């Protein structure tokens, strides 16, 4: 979990390190250089400190640190070389070290002490070599090839001996001040996997939903790509948890939350709103409350503070009951119900346990999904529809009931808060963190087009390592895996949104839907690419997947997602 970096703590460590740098310069000149060490060389404390700070700081800070430390060595009295020499070398060294380490963390998605230390040592060696190289370049009489060959090995050796100590000290000082930077800009392994499985899990959802209503749109009709399309499903699942994870990918859902406080509306209204919302959740969202029961204004208002709304409704399991009204609209669009809500209709269904079991199984699938292959997905495709056909409503029912009874529900309820936090909808993103995620979130909230550009890449992944976990948890409850793939997949919907002027995420009916007036689930032709949906699992083609993975990796390598 990313720990919030307190300003105080950060300031303290900055001051400490600045003093340490100054002290290192003085100690280097007054003590270290005077030690009669064998080999005619001495360790370079300043260089070690610069590189150690570099791997713990941003490239800009590292460059400034290196410049300052080098310049101090350049101008402090006994210096005989040209001023600026070491400043140049240390500046480059620090910057490169920070940059390289960042690239590594971006690739692995984790903070790695060993990698950090390795980078630091490598940078130190490079720095020593750089000092010698620049001296040779400037034809400093003191620095000749003979001298370098005599001094350099010893200097590097002493640096290596001293580096663990310096590294440890810097880690100590910066602990808590430097975020556990796993802001893996890009995607974790789990997330990459999630992107693979998302479509599969998505395919199952409609089944679940539809079965209860008596509509038998098989997974066949499942729209394959737009995350937008997932939205209805998610809502219906009854856990409400999915919403939370979803926002990561795109916009905060405005409408959904509104439903919590509202009373059920006439079935007709509900139906209308439901149908309209299916599609791409484009711009209309505000008017068409998903809940279908809310006054327009109420919807808009809640839309602005999705995080809070969610929190209120889902933070505790007990609140689950309250949430269920939110799903009512979903029911509405399903067309099943009257004011009484899904709970009633679903109650009649087959044992809820069946659904639970299913969910549990699915969860297992997803969690173990790292190894999952096409075959497993295929199996799911076939098996799933059948099992769910009868009992779709079970989840809804349980949600409607006040207390979560099943393991799946409990899990969903438990994961809900964390889901929220991961979404950062809880307020962390709003807090103005510098994490990329927060940035694009806020940007997207504004519904500005620039946000679109940012969204996919920067990181919904966010900074915390725990997020992936949350995401997967959400899969369990809501069956939707929100992964990196989502961010990627979200691009197209986002673009569409740009044209339509709405929030794709909201999963409310898009303008396109309204215009075409077709039922969302049947509608495939409007989907970009217009490929026929895969019957059950709705999986991506292998090509697709590879493309996504490659794109993700490229982004990482380029450091874009940072």
């Amino acid at each position: 979990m990313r720990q919030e970096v307190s300003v105080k703590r950060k300031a303290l460590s900055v001051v400490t390190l600045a003093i340490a740098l100054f002290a290192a310069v003085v100690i280097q000149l007054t003590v270290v250089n005077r030690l009669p060490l064998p080999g005619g060389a001495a360790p370079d404390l300043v260089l070690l400190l610069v590189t150690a700070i570099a791997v713990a700081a941003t490239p800009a800070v590292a460059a400034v640190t290196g410049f300052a430390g080098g310049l101090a060595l350049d101008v402090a009295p006994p210096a005989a070389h040209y001023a600026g020499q070491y400043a140049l070398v240390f500046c480059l060294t620090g910057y490169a070290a920070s940059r390289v380490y960042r690239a590594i963390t971006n690739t692995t998605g984790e903070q790695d002490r060993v990698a950090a230390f390795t980078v630091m040592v490598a940078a130190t060696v490079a720095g020593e070599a750089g000092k010698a190289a620049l001296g040779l370049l400037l034809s400093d009489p003191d620095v000749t090839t003979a001298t370098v060959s005599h001094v350099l090995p010893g200097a590097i050796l002493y640096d290596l001996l001293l580096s663990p100590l310096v590294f440890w000290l810097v880690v100590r000082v910066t602990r808590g001040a430097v975020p556990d930077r796993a802001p893996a800009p890009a995607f974790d392994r789990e997330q990459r996997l999630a992107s693979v499985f998302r479509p599969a899990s998505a395919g199952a959802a409609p089944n679940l939903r539809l079965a209860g209503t008596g509509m038998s749109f098989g997974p066949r009709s499942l729209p394959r790509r737009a995350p937008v399309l997932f939205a209805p499903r998610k809502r219906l699942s009854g856990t409400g948890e999915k919403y939370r994870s979803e926002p990561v990918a795109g916009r905060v859902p405005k409408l959904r939350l509104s439903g919590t406080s509202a009373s059920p509306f006439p079935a007709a209204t509900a139906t209308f709103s439901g149908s309209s919302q299916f599609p791409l959740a484009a711009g209309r969202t505000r008017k068409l409350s998903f809940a279908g029961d809310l006054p327009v204004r109420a919807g808009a208002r809640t839309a602005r503070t999705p995080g809070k709304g969610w929190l209120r409704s889902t933070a505790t399991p007990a609140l689950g009951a309250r949430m269920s009204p939110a799903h009512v609209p979903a029911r509405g669009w399903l067309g099943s119900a009257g004011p009484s809500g899904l709970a009633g209709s679903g109650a009649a269904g087959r044992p809820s346990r069946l659904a639970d079991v299913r969910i549990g199984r699915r969860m297992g699938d997803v969690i173990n999904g790292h190894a999952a292959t096409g075959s497993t997905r295929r199996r799911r495709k076939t098996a799933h529809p059948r099992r769910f056909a009868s009992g779709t409503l079970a989840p809804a029912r349980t949600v409607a009931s006040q207390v979560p009874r099943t393991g799946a529900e409990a899990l969903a309820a438990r994961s809900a808060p964390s889901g929220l936090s991961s979404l950062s909808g809880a307020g962390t993103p709003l807090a103005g963190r510098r994490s990329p995620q927060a940035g694009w979130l806020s940007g997207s909230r504004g519904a500005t087009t620039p946000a679109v550009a940012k969204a996919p890449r920067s990181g919904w992944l966010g900074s915390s390592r725990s997020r992936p976990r949350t995401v997967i948890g959400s899969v369990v409850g809501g069956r939707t895996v929100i992964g990196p793939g989502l961010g990627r997949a979200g691009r197209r919907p986002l673009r569409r949104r740009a044209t339509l002027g709405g929030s794709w995420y909201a999963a409310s009916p898009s303008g396109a839907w309204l215009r075409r007036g077709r039922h969302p689930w049947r509608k495939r032709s409007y989907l970009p690419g217009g490929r026929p949906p895969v019957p059950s699992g709705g999986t991506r083609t292998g090509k697709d997947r590879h493309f996504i993975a490659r794109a993700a990796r490229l982004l990482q390598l380029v450091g874009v997602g940072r």
Partner: protein
Amino acid sequence: MLEARRTRAVLIALLVVAIALITIDFRDGGNSGAHSLGGRIFGPVEHLAGDATSVFRGAGNANEVANLQKQNDELRAQLAQARTANTDAAQLTKLLRLSKSDGYHVVTGTVIAAGGDYSDTVTINAGSRDGITSNETVLNGDGLVGTVVSTTPTTATVQLATDANATVGIRMAGTDQIGSLSGSAATLSGSAPLKLTLFNANAALKPGQTLVTFGSVGGRPYVPGVPVGTVSTVTTQPGSLTPTAVVKPFADFTGLGVVGVVVSK
């Protein structure tokens, strides 16, 4: 993206500044304002640090030692002067315009800092306030140490005779042959020798011969007659125009403590 761009801007700005500093310093021959500014900032700090470290070095009776050292240095300087005067005083005096009325005055200082791996420079805790100026001879109880290259109010930077930039005019003690002695880099903590080149192609060089400074105009940067070292190995190559040798200095450059600066009054 924005952050990356900002980072790049910072980096480029810093590099430009660094290169500008190098260029300016290069133009000024290593004596740009940056060095004096740095001296002003770090000089006092190093002064303090030198005092602090001297405590650890057990210099409880540092003052006494310093006084004795100073006396010793003064006597040595006078002896060198006397010796010089006795050999061929008239000629040298005329040649070098040594004013015999001026005795040598020695200001003592303690080494408080040393340069890095590639430079043979040290800083002493006496500066322009004590009357030290650039290009003054620095010696210790054993022999020649170097010359002052820059000063701050409280510190002075000494270029050791072993620095690659240093060239000392010398005279063979017995034969009065003159030559030059140049340092090789990285001898501060090592044992790289000094290289002697005599100007007279026919001069005889033998191991064990003693070298003293030849002296410079006005005693800057080197006063005459300061013992430098002894010839350890003759390295004259057959057919070379000048005899060369390796010289072992009297002073122990790896363990410099109290040194004296010859201040001309």
